[in-house]
């Protein structure tokens, strides 16, 4: 079952909404929009990432040079964004699977959405810290 089917389930429990739409604008819809955007974004990154890694077959220096760009402040920040996108996609993917295969999944789809957002924040705060400490301290004159 997709997110759209989840929203329908939920309406059964809650009664139809006064604006007459069952799914549009519901958090369930936005969780699906975000799942789609993060999935497509990750797929495009994978394309670039296999190409840059393939430089190990060209020469050590060619590879070390591209990897240097990953260590620059801007790409480092983009990388934090990518990790955040993949983490959301993975957590929401688990939620989608629980809705599909767990008998109580559809009933708990909304609390599961809030839970995954909390988990996302709890992981991303230390994650972003460890990914960026070195970049930030180098930018402000540290070693």
């Amino acid at each position: 079952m997709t997110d759209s089917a989840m929203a329908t389930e939920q309406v059964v429990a809650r009664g139809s909404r006064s604006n007459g739409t069952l799914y549009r604008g519901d958090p369930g819809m936005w969780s699906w929009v975000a799942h789609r955007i993060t999935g497509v974004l990750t797929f495009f990154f994978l394309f670039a990432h296999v190409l840059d890694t393939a430089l190990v077959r060209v020469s050590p220096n060619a590879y070390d040079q591209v990897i240097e760009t990953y260590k620059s402040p801007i790409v480092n920040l983009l990388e934090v964004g990518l990790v955040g996108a993949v983490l959301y996609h993975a957590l929401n993917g688990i939620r989608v699977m629980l809705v599909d295969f767990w008998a109580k999944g559809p009933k708990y789809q909304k609390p599961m959405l809030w839970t995954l957002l909390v988990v996302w924040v709890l992981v991303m705060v230390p994650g972003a810290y460890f990914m960026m400490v070195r970049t930030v301290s180098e930018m402000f004159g540290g070693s």
Partner: protein
Amino acid sequence: MTLALDKPRSPRRPAARRSNFELASWLFMRISGIALIVLVLGHLFIMNILDGGVHRINFAFVAGRWSSPFWQLWDLSMLWLAEIHGGNGLRTVINDYARKDTTRFWLKVMLYVSMVLILALGTYVIFTFDATIPAD
């Protein structure tokens, strides 16, 4: 609330389902998703966060990792599962948004060509990696 279903128990429906491809694709997204949780999140954690993260990565680091069959197999499985999972997801996205049959056709041709290219190149690199090639 009762769902309006068209005689769900009518004896036999005409052969509506000629292929189970979409069912297989749906299942594959979920099975590969489970494997990718470990493969991809593990990869991101090791490469970006564990001791020094991206700052310790260079050719020598890759050479050290790929001297072990374990990481070769890890990366090979991740490559194939992520590329097919993501490619299959993008196929759905193209089906959803392309309005003309010709647009849909050519977008899919581009998608499949890029998938074959990435799978072939990535597999080639993992299998033929050589730690002793000249520095430049």
